[in-house]
């Protein structure tokens, strides 16, 4: 799309040699867009479509109030991106994307959202940031996004050729990526496996239920302070410490302890 931009031979600056006036910058941008439209192939269209779809889905996940809807939109976004991968001849990764991201992780998200019955009520009582600060934050956001676009645009307009190199037919397939994976990147592969193991163990340990943590704390002989730090403090002491409002103690949220029946009506075991 940008080839046209580079094609025009530059007349020496300052002198107006050609018959028509030297093209200005804006004229040149419009020219590029027109050129892109003219030379795009059907594949470009498909790709653009799915790209736009992915972006819309992403915006949706970020703006939806209800986390469940957000999760679903995110899954949609992942699917569109997977399709883009296929267009970029990264078929194995497209499959992987779908399997891991959309399949496993989003399921986990939805699962957690459902189990914890998370609702955004809690957020409501937080006052929206005062308007004076909002201006500041928007300013920050504008600065940050401005810098990023400046950098993006600077690189894109400068260094980029449009088409990739000739690639072998099996480029991006499971076989070639596998050979690459178990060849030079073997060590990294093993390291990642270790990482995943650590993550799993971490997740299990962190998300232990209150009853198990209480049993373990008593076994280790925690002092009263240690119990407080571990979040296992007895109700009265927590209130005394001012960490929990008595309202929270009286009406523990269902997730407070899996053992008790959830306030929302359905029995325990969440």
């Amino acid at each position, binding site marked *: 799309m940008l080839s046209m931009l*580079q094609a025009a031979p*530059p007349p*020496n600056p300052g002198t107006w040699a050609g018959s028509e006036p030297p093209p200005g910058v804006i004229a040149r*941008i419009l020219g590029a867009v027109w050129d892109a439209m003219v030379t795009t192939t059907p594949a470009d269209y498909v790709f653009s479509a799915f790209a736009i779809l992915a972006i819309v889905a992403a915006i949706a996940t970020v703006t939806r109030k209800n986390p469940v809807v957000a999760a679903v939109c995110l899954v949609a976004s992942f699917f569109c991106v997977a399709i883009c991968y296929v267009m970029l001849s990264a078929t194995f990764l497209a499959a992987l994307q779908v399997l891991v991201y959309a399949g496993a992780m989003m399921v986990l998200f939805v699962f957690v959202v459902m189990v914890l019955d998370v609702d955004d009520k809690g957020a409501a009582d937080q006052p929206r940031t005062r308007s004076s600060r909002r201006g500041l934050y928007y300013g920050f956001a504008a600065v*940050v996004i401005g810098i990023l676009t400046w*950098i993006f645009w600077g690189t894109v*307009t*400068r260094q980029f050729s449009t088409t990739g190199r000739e690639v072998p037919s099996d480029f991006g397939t499971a076989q070639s990526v596998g050979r690459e994976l178990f060849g030079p990147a073997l060590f990294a592969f093993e390291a990642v496996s270790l990482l995943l193991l650590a993550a799993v163990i971490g997740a299990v340990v962190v998300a232990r239920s209150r009853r198990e943590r209480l049993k373990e704390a008593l076994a280790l002989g925690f002092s009263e302070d240690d119990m407080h730090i571990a979040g296992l403090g007895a109700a009265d002491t927590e209130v005394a410490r001012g960490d929990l409002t008595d309202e929270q103690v009286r009406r523990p949220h269902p997730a407070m302890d899996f053992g008790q029946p959830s306030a929302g009506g359905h029995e325990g075991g969440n």
Partner: protein
Amino acid sequence: MEHTLLWIPLFPLMGAIFNLLFGGLIKRWAGPRIGKEVAHLVAIGAVAFSCFFVFSLVMQPGHGLGFMHLLQTGNLREIIPGPGRSGHRIVDQVYPWIVSGDTIVYFELLLDNLSGLMCMIITGVGLLIHIFSVGYMANDEGYHRYFAYLNLFMASMLILVLGKSLVLTFVGWEGVGLCSYLLIGFWFTDEAKATAGRKAFITNRIGDFGVILGMLILFSVVGSLDYDAIRGSCASVADTPLLADETAIFGVSAATAATLCLFLGCTGKSAQIPLYVWLPDAMAGPTPVSALIHAATMVTAGIYLCVRLNFLFALAPLTMAIIALIGGVTAFFAATIAITQNDIKKVLAYSTVSQLGYMFLAVGMGAWTSAMFHVMTHAFFKACLFLGSGAVIEACHHNQDIRTMGGLRKKMPVTRITFLLSCLAIAGIPPLSGFFSKDEILLHAYVDWSAWSPGLNYAGYLLGLAAALCTAMYMFRLYFLAFAGSWRGDSHTWEHHVKEHGIMSLPLVILAVLATFGGFLGYPHALPGHDKLPHMLDAWLEPVTSISRAFTGEYQLGVRTQLDGAPLWFADADRHITAAAEFTFMGVSVAVAFVGLGLAYALYRNGPSSQAASWAKRLGLLHALSRGKYFVDEIYKALILGPLYRLSQVLWLGVDQTIIDDLGVRGVAGTVSVIGNGVRIWHNGSLRRYLVMLVLGATVVLGSVYCNPRVSQVGPNVLNPTDPGGLRPQQGGVPVDWSRWWYRDADPPTAKAPARSAAQAPRPGVQAPPVAPAGPAARGGVR
């Protein structure tokens, strides 16, 4: 013995060390009596040895300086080394003391006529005083320490006199200062005496400050501080480096600068006008100490130095004038103070200051020989006076106030006679030594060339005469109040205590004899029998002072003449003083002496009289001023010591504590903690604020990296094909050489053409004194 001269100072030194280390132990082991015996035997033995050694060296015919020859042949004129004959000198180079670079200082002793004379005085009078001290200090428990310090003093004084270079003299100079500090503050339990000792040492130190500067100037000009080297460079007035204008300092010639500094040292040591304040307070020490140090030997060190460097001082007419003026003024000023003092030792102290003033008057006039003559005679009669006063004080049970004495002649006949003889001598009554030496000084004061103008001659002479009058007055006032009239003290002391000690009288008698007949060493030309008894001292010191007398023109010494060389009324054609002139001068000074004596006799012949009191009232202000010693001490304290102490307080509390410590050190610590607190507020625990900070930080870093043209301007600019890309910091189209950001010129320095290869010749500007190498550094150095 291989080292001939080293033994002279070494023996008293060893005596001192022995007494210091073992005196106490012997006293403890063998009991006080034997301890005392051992102490003073060792001390007196050491001094006796060096005295014997000095006299033998001086007197030996061939080897010595021909004095013994005098006694054998009896004919004085033939054997005294005439002007042509070079004087004998013994040089003993012991070892190289400081050798560094081109500075070479040897521990070298020199015995020639001048130092021979001084050694004889020092060891002679010293020995007598050592003997006197045995009696005086009999019942003092610091006995061995006293004799140790006295021996140490003798050693330092001998090194001072025998030293062949100015550095060695300076060693003796400070050693003597230390000993006077120790001896003045001998009874240190009394705070006042200790303070007096400290005052003496510090005032001497101020003088030493001058000597050090003088030494530095001389060293830089002459290249060595050896007396022969200095004499060599002063030999010919025409091309001496001391007077060359290249070596001038602060506008005066090097000779003048050096001599002025040295003279500052002499005023410190010989108690002249600015720095004399320590001598009256030095009377706090035991009386024999005052006799030895503050009458005979130490205080004459200043005069010795001037006479030793006479060729240098002669080259500095300005300094000679200042010396003469200060000498004259001091003589008169101190004499006036002495008149109204009531403490026997204070009177003698101010009398010493006055007599020293006389000597410096002589030095100022270039009459080196008469100065040394007066040094000798003064040593005799002043030592006798001090020892006499010591005997009197001992007799009056350590009471020094003459108003409570009187009538001592009945019980202390020997002391009275010796005291009377010395008083006559110092007053300048004819047959005695004082008359000859003082008269000679007054004669030369009037007769010799003076550096400025005849005015200085008249001023010097008149001041000398007035001082002579006062001297006669206060000496005989002292004599009459002490010895004449009747005992005014308490009767108990009179019955039991007032008596004479045998051992103390012996030195008194010897000194009195010397004071009486000492004058004949410098027998004046005019008196009859001159051919049989020439002016021995003149001939004796001739080799030492030959160079300075040979100077002509601006630095001329000796009898002054009209501008065209015609003789004045007192001199004949070949510039010798006529007999008539000498007689007139003698007459005037004798008359003045008798007037003084008469006055004292009238007022005090039998104790303090009503006329004295009435005169005192009539001269109220003058009397009070003189009694209060013109309040010089108070003035010094108010003008110098007080402000200096306050300045030090301000420096310590102000500069050190506040400016450097509080502002500097604690200030820096303070700012660091303030900054720390400022940053702490940011971390209030909100996760989202941290995230925002994180993102901001990341983008700023990314952005700054992207500013680097090497990252962003890579490859062709798709939008503006004419943009050549690559590194080109632009300012007015000319690349800026940012490496020289400290440029001083208006516009930034442009990157120079590739730095000139080292092979090129150094900067053309190197020949003429160019601007120092470019850049603020060199320019920063003040040119």
